[in-house]
């Protein structure tokens, strides 16, 4: 039962942390809870469908369907997270300063941030399907003993959700002045980590060369299976034995989004300064 709880916890942790960060980042989007609920529900139903179609998806693209599917979902999520961050940088200064004076911008901003709720759905879809498959395997396995194991699965889910909620509650304690900066930085690292994972799937599918495998090996002092390792993996994309190509993707996405943010932020800061002066 304990082993089951640990596996399910590990599968669900990443999605839970992503949901925690994105729920915090969308705290002032009207009807946020409804959107969030819908995103999670859509993700879960998608996860069920993906789990059911595992065999069929895998057969696509000469047996590389699963890898391409995962890479596509991750790529889509990266694009959406990047768009959110760039938008927040160009309007975030005004938002944080005086939310009421920028009516249209706020409405657009809510739209930009409701994109994050789609990412919630994608994250739940991707991570959830593996959990569904695992639990199905338990339920379908011969002999008794499946009831305590299912209980373990539920405990794992509860644990993962609790960690995601803790992160969410912690983020909400950040003063509003720093809040958008903090969530933008978290979203930035989420995007870079997802890009690195997408690269891993493309390497696995033999679409991309791995460059060095692994580029480094830190599994000795911070294994990815450890609690700290898997937390860091989910939050900033830490990998103990990454390939060179993953790091290329990671750094590229990080630098492109960060540069864009800095550039747009400068523009928006001077625009809002001249705006107050007028």
């Amino acid at each position, binding site marked *: 039962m304990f*082993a089951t709880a640990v*596996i399910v916890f590990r599968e669900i942790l990443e999605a839970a942390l992503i949901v925690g960060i994105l729920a915090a980042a969308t705290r002032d989007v009207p009807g946020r809870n409804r959107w969030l609920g819908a995103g999670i529900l859509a993700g879960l139903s998608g996860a069920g469908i993906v789990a059911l179609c*595992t*065999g069929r998806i*895998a057969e696509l*693209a*000469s*047996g*590389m369907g*699963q*890898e*391409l599917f995962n*890479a*596509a979902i991750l*790529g*889509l999520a*990266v*694009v959406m997270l*990047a768009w959110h961050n760039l938008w927040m940088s160009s309007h975030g200064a005004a938002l944080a300063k005086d939310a009421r004076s920028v009516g249209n911008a706020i409405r657009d901003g809510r739209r930009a941030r409701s994109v994050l709720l789609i990412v919630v759905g994608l994250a739940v879809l991707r991570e959830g*399907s*593996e959990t569904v*498959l*695992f639990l*199905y*395997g338990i339920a*379908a*396995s011969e002999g008794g003993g499946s009831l305590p194991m299912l209980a373990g699965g539920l405990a794992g889910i509860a644990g993962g959700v609790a960690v995601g909620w803790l992160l969410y509650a912690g983020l909400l304690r950040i003063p509003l002045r720093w809040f958008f900066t903090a969530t933008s930085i978290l979203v930035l690292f989420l995007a870079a980590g997802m*890009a690195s994972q*997408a690269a*891993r799937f*493309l*390497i*696995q*599918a*033999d*679409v*991309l060369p*791995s460059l060095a*495998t*692994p580029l480094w090996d830190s*599994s000795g002092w911070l*294994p*990815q*299976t450890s609690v700290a390792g898997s937390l860091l993996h989910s939050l900033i994309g830490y*990998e*103990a*034995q*990454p*390939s060179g190509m993953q790091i290329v*993707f990671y750094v*590229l*996405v990080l630098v*492109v989004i960060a540069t864009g943010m800095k550039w747009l932020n400068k523009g928006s800061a001077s625009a809002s300064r001249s705006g107050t002066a007028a």
Partner: protein
Amino acid sequence: MSRLLPLALLLFVASTGALAADDEFKLVIESHKFDPAEITVPAGKKIKLIIENRDATPEEFESHALNREKVIAGKSTATIFIGPLKPGRYPFVGEYNEATAKGTIVVN
């Protein structure tokens, strides 16, 4: 970077015909165990692992050392590309049945 994805996917689809030259190795999953549990493969070459899951339940091939994870549906066969690798031992597990489903790829 992710905008390059569709292009990469296209290139991939166009190039699938050219994959036959890789070294192939076969593994079977039965009763939540890998058979053989240890295979030896050459270093510095790309390897095509073909894993047949004879169990009715799905399994997830996972190896942090190899940097690979792939779900293999029940009663189905999956292909995983690994390498080129440096000599050494690379453990892998079936994540859904980690107690029994264990194996190692030895690279010489």
